[in-house]
């Protein structure tokens, strides 16, 4: 473990091209997919939490089912859609970072919708009642609701980012873990473990943990500022 740690430090500072590429692809995929999922999930979750409609319960159940979607199933569906015989083959997304981002967005969006829905369901009746009593416009009410949900939005982003960084199944199926193209930290760890190179796998794991730690500290600082 000690050797792996020092080897990880050595790798980071050695300017190893492959490692830098792995980190770049990981960050590009994780930051993009969690951001897109956030942009889709926050308004959809807020809408689901606000509406009082008979079919709402069904939509919530569907979303909760999708929250538990196994990554390999998501990867399989995306693979079939993007592969040479799939309906979206002309987009050329198989074994690309863009394809991996799409797969991640499919996995992350239901999580963010569910997180936002449960939060907004709690606060929206009181906000709605107060805003209606003050004769506020719908746009202003939505802005106030979003302002009240700042903390939850960051929490949702953190949830998505954490899941995205750690995910293996879908990205390895859609991306193929191609060196210098679609290999990310998690798939690289899996590949090096399969090759018996535990030291490098451990080193990559430590780097992944440090990245997750730094991102979490940044998010916690933002949340702390928002709470004050």
């Amino acid at each position, binding site marked *: 473990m000690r050797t792996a740690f020092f080897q990880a430090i050595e790798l980071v500072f050695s300017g190893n091209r492959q490692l830098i590429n792995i980190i770049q692809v990981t960050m590009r995929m994780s930051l993009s997919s969690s951001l897109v999922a956030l942009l889709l999930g926050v308004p959809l979750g807020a809408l689901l939490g606000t509406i009082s409609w008979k079919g709402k319960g069904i939509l919530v159940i569907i979303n909760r089912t999708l929250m538990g979607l196994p990554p390999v199933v998501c990867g399989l569906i995306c693979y079939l859609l993007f592969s040479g015989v799939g309906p979206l083959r002309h987009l050329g997304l198989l074994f690309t970072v863009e394809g991996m981002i799409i797969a991640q967005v499919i996995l992350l969006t239901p999580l963010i919708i569910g997180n936002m829905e449960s939060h907004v369901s709690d606060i929206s009746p*009181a906000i709605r009642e*107060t805003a209606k*009593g*003050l004769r506020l416009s719908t746009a202003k009410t939505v802005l106030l609701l979003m*302002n*009240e949900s700042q903390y939850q939005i960051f929490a949702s982003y953190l949830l998505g980012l954490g899941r995205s960084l750690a995910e293996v199944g879908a990205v390895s199926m859609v991306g193929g873990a191609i060196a210098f193209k679609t290999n990310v930290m998690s798939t690289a760890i899996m590949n090096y473990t399969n090759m018996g190179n535990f030291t490098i796998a451990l080193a990559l794991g430590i780097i992944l943990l440090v990245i997750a730690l730094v991102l979490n500290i940044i998010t916690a600082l933002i949340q702390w500022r928002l709470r004050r």
Partner: protein
Amino acid sequence: MKTCSFTKTYGSHTVLQAPAMELSPGRIYAVIGANGSGKSTLVKILSGLLASDEKQAPFKEKPLCIGHLPQKPYAFRLNTLNNVLLGAAKMDTAAAKEKALDLLTKLGIETLASKSAQRLSGGETARMALARSMMQDYDLFILDEPTASLDVQSTILAENQILSYRKETGAAILLITHSLKQARRLADEVWYLQNGQIIETGTSEQVLYSPADARTRQFLEFYSL
């Protein structure tokens, strides 16, 4: 202002059956009744928050300007002054700020203007919400237990402010209250609700001191006015 008659049922349970009522500008109407008598359902329908079974507007006249201070008003994640300014039609004007500070002073919470509204106590939140609701002029102002969480001193400040608001705006005020003493102090007319039905209406003298209906008498005796 004339209301339509309306009902509200949940499943087979009728929670409110209200006849057509009339409200005059500049008068205060106290709605009294035990818990679950239908008071909150009545104000929610009148303020447009809840649809009646008839699915029609509760008032016969053109759209009225109705303000509603709910039983549990929400303190937004802003400071107290900005929360109050939310109630103004144009919140960025100097006049709105002056009015907001004046209301906070009259309600005894001017020193809390820059404090986060979510850190106010229950009583302070109630006074902030009252000030916020009074930033606009309404045809009908509905207040759902506005002093339930206030101490005696703050209740007097709030009641004085409600009377001032009526005088300045000429609005009809519908006040939901559990305090018969408050109804006596403020109301021109009293509506007594029981099991979703308006049992008795009349001037506060009539209803509170010489009620015509035995059920009203029983309720008043229980509360020992």
